[in-house]
């Protein structure tokens, strides 16, 4: 079985988000980059299938040379090889198109993604890749088993869960629950050493068409100072919520 895992390189979750002075772009100064946390669940699931079913795991990232450290980290976690499409992606569509172009001839049985990336929160790439490849798509997946050319996926629905069987090849977008938090793999020294020699192929993009542009960005306005209420005066809290905020 061949698995392709899509990973995106995002600002570390503790990052303060700032924009350039003219507000036209995200300010990358001083940012640490990590594998998108939701993609880590997908990657770990793929490594588990590699261990249990002898699958080969390829990671793909659409990005410029600055994203190579996260690809190397994915290789250190256990992926067999990596592909970087040499394009600083400007929207979900251009990202999805490049992933689909690589996947088209790769003969992958399964494409795993995180359900959204925590930077631009598009949540669009997995579904777009599925449609570009004309494959079934399961989103918000919190469980997955593969049996021959069929997968059983559990997806989160509002207020519950649904178990579905899916014909492979398919695209599955995962989130926390796809594997347990405690099973996420932290690369060890051997992994890090072997990642240096694993193949990382760089391919040129097929086009530069974009459909959506970020024209400007704003920060979130700060809240007014907190009003503290004494613990023995909860009547006051109830009054404030009822009369001032009018939320109860």
């Amino acid at each position: 079985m061949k698995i392709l895992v899509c990973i995106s390189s995002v600002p570390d979750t503790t990052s303060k988000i700032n924009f350039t002075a003219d507000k036209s772009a995200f300010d990358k100064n001083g940012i640490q980059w990590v594998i998108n946390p939701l993609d880590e669940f997908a990657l770990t699931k793929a490594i588990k299938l590699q261990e249990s079913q002898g699958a080969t795991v390829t990671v793909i990232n659409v990005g410029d040379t600055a994203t190579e450290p996260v690809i190397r980290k994915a290789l250190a976690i256990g992926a067999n090889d990596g592909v970087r499409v040499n394009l600083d992606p400007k929207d979900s569509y251009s990202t999805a198109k490049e992933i689909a172009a690589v996947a088209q001839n790769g003969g992958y049985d399964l494409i795993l993604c995180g359900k959204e990336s925590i930077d631009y929160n598009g949540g669009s790439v997995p579904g777009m890749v599925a449609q570009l490849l004309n494959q079934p798509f399961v989103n918000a997946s919190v469980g997955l088993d593969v049996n021959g050319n069929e997968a059983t996926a559990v997806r989160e629905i509002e207020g519950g869960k649904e178990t579905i069987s899916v014909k492979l090849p398919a695209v599955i977008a995962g989130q926390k629950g796809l594997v347990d938090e405690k099973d996420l793999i932290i690369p060890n020294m051997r992994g890090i050493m072997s990642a240096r020699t694993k193949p990382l192929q760089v391919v040129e993009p097929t086009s530069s068409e974009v459909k959506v542009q970020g024209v400007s960005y704003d920060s979130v306005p700060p809240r007014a100072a907190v009003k503290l209420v004494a613990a023995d005066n909860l009547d006051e809290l109830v009054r404030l919520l009822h009369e001032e905020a009018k939320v109860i």
Partner: protein
Amino acid sequence: MAVFVYAENINGVYKKAAFEAVSYAKAVADQAGDTVTAITVNPTDSSDLLYKYGASNVINIKDEGLKNFSAKAYAQAVSEVANGNVIVFPHTTDASSIAPMLAIMNGSSLITNVLEAPESLSPFQVKRKAFSGKGFMHAKSEGAAVILTVSQNAFGVKENTVSGSEEVKNLSVANEDTKVISHEQSSGKLDLKEAEIVVSAGRGLKGPENWGMIEELANVLGAATACSKPVSDIGWRPHNEHVGQTGKAISPNLYIAVGISGAIQHLAGVNSSKTIVVINSDAEAPFFKSADYGVVGDAFQIIPALTEKIKALKG
């Protein structure tokens, strides 16, 4: 500029998010001087409910094949009946699975997590959530046709009754790639993303056996319950209650955080709540900096007392 909207129902019953999406579509249509057509799949609810928020035409897709959800089959169905320039979806799990597939089928632009009515129609430009609620992006579509998903609880539900008419379409979309094996829905529980009030608790509660008082407060308020990430990691609460950057992003009218420190990753998912109340024994907890109201004190004393006082208020 015809405006279409996907009115999501769950087991035939319209979701609040559907009414919000219709309200949003109506605002776009008013801006464009056009009308709203709502598309819905196998509803049992009356179309009157959609006229009430401004849909003057309802396309009611009847299709046995769509009894079970499949993103692809649903996208196919919507694509067969929607031929407008703008198609609005709520940003629910199902709708945000359909929208990207539809965008590829139709060659449309897709803008997700939309917060406000468009800033401009031509070119289409709109404000959306980005960086997990730590920033906003003004996104512009390069093409004429655009698909939007509207962030839940952002635009709000706005009544705007119009006289409407319904058209039933019998489709039979192929739905062969995926098959639903089982479907579990916990009944009676409020949907976290739709809830107007959310009571949330963190590691400060010490153990799962102490959640009774959180549920009771939530019951009295008609609220949904949520939790911080470590709480669901340890298994005190189910994963689907975890809110934050890597969990659910929510924007209720009132968010009550009990025994939660207010780490940046937690805040990312909840800071678009309209009013935030923080209850924490540590006066230095970072969450107080992002709260509207705060009580420094022991949750084990405050929560039961607060519950009684709210009960009294509600009479």
